[in-house]
């Protein structure tokens, strides 16, 4: 798949990390380079030895059966796993060559640069306006807040629907609108990457279609990683697709997820190398 980034890569995390500690040799077309990433919950190895590059301004989809560690791996990209007691990441998660788990890296700043949208829409119980203004206010960008809010809502294709009810509580919106509000809220923080964990699984097909169109629009500006159980969705929106599976350890019985195959979406769906991938994407399990 050819690289489609229109602009040279910007490296906003450098705002947080003054000196780059031994930047590792990486492909400059990649936003992330994962090298032998393993994630543990306590003693349990949830995902083992994932190595992959996630490209700029593309949509990368994680697919695979339940429990194979898609969410776990996704959360390791912006250090959301830090919030789970006992969760531990080994190996390298490199963001433009910078170790996301490096000693000088601040997880809060990581999440400013790498935003996240969740499975269940989770707006704050505040007004639509305050939801979107939340991030900018935290960052101290209080000038022209109205414009910032409008821009983010437009970016999430929500402005026309809510422009007359910005002061209303976000919980009065439909599920699909709430999810787009969460995307707007995420954009308003001005991230570089947006991680989405099954963002449409709670939504009807029409809302899902809207969000898919939106993702395709957003990848011009952002790098997007999405977890999905919806094969057609991956096929429709993703440039690259990674298929994971989970297998039980014979001795301990614990289940560990692993990356099976990672390639362009068209290759994964039409000409996969691994039979497990083929079985999964064609709907034959087991």
């Amino acid at each position, binding site marked *: 798949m050819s690289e489609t980034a229109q602009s040279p890569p910007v490296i906003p995390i450098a705002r947080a990390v003054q000196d780059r500690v031994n930047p590792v040799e990486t492909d400059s077309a990649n936003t992330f380079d994962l090298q032998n990433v393993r994630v543990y919950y306590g003693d349990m190895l949830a995902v083992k030895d994932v190595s992959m590059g996630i490209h700029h301004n593309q949509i990368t989809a994680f697919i695979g059966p339940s429990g194979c560690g898609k969410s776990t791996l996704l959360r390791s990209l*912006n250090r*959301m796993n830090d*919030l789970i*007691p006992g969760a531990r990441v080994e190996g390298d998660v490199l963001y433009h060559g910078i170790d996301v788990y490096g000693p000088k890296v601040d997880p*809060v*700043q990581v*999440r*400013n640069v790498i*935003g*996240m949208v*969740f499975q*269940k829409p*989770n*707006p*704050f*119980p*505040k007004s639509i306006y305050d939801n979107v203004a*939340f*991030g900018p206010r*935290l*960052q101290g960008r209080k000038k022209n807040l109205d414009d910032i809010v409008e821009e983010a809502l437009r970016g999430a294709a929500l402005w026309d629907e809510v422009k007359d009810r910005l002061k209303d*509580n976000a*919980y009065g919106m439909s599920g699909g609108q709430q999810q787009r509000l*969460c995307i707007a*809220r*995420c954009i308003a*923080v001005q991230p570089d990457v947006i991680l989405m964990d099954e963002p449409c699984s709670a939504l009807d097909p029409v809302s899902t279609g809207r969000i898919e169109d939106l993702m395709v629009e957003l990848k011009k500006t952002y790098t997007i990683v999405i977890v999905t159980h919806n094969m057609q969705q991956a096929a429709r929106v993703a440039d690259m697709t990674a298929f994971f599976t989970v297998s039980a350890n014979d001795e301990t019985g614990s289940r560990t997820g692993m990356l099976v195959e990672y390639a362009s979406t068209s290759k994964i769906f039409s000409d996969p190398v691994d039979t497990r991938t083929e079985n999964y994407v064609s709907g034959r399990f087991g």
Partner: protein
Amino acid sequence: MSTQTVELGASRSGEPPRSLEAPSLRIGERIIKALLWSAATLSVLVTTGIVVSLLIPSIAFFQQVPLWEFLTGTVWAPAFANPSYGVLPIVVGTLTVVFFATLVAVPVGLSSAIYLSEYASPRVRRIVKPILEVLEGLPTVAIGLFAFAVLTPLIRQLTPFLPWTGPFSIGVAGITVGLLIIPLVSSVSDDAMRSVPADLRQGAYAMGATKYEVALKVIVPAAISGIIAAFVLGISRAIGETMVVLLVAGAGSPVLSFDPTKGTQTMTAYIGSTATGDIAQGTITYDSIFAVGVLLFLMTLAMNILAIRLVKKYREVYD
């Protein structure tokens, strides 16, 4: 679904239909129901009884002392030969206690709740939370003695510039009551904050909020109705607290004063120190206790109504 009509009274096989009546009288069920009903009725009766028994002597009291004089009078001297029944001095005493108790308990209780809910490790929580709950149940007389013997001298030494006189101080009583209700305020606020859905917390962290920002800008606003309920519970307890006030502020003759370094009576201290065995029923002093009781009751009620309004106004609804 079959559209066949079934003949009433006949079962499929042509045998007589099975009975649809109860196989037994279900005596146990009836007894349980009756017991539960009696318990519910009893609690309603008891509550009504309390209100009525407060009201009847109060009515007698207000036949002798005009309501207006009671509410606006500035001299409270019911036991004097020339008695005066202006309730303001002991109301001010109670409000002083509430003021200092709030000053202590709200910031400390809320901070410790934020710490417990958002910062503490599960291990620390497992240890601290039960301790708080035990502290909530500590006998107030023990805390009163501690305050009298330790806290009062300590505060005096730390603030030699204040005009301390005598062994009693209403301000110290308020501070003590504040300490007393910290566990309550903290524990109830903590419960409210813990019940905020985890995905709100996650959402805020995912936007690059720090712990402090998550707590203050997302969790506290989302839990505000529970937190206000905690404050109200605490303040209601401060209004009603008797033992600590008797021990620390004394039950000396009340003078209308806003000076926290002086000892004075509160409404509860008056009731507590006057309602002794040797007070004759039917006397005006006897009736005055109940009048003060009714006022106390109304103040707590007003407090609760105010809280409900506040909660309605500031509540952030999530579901």
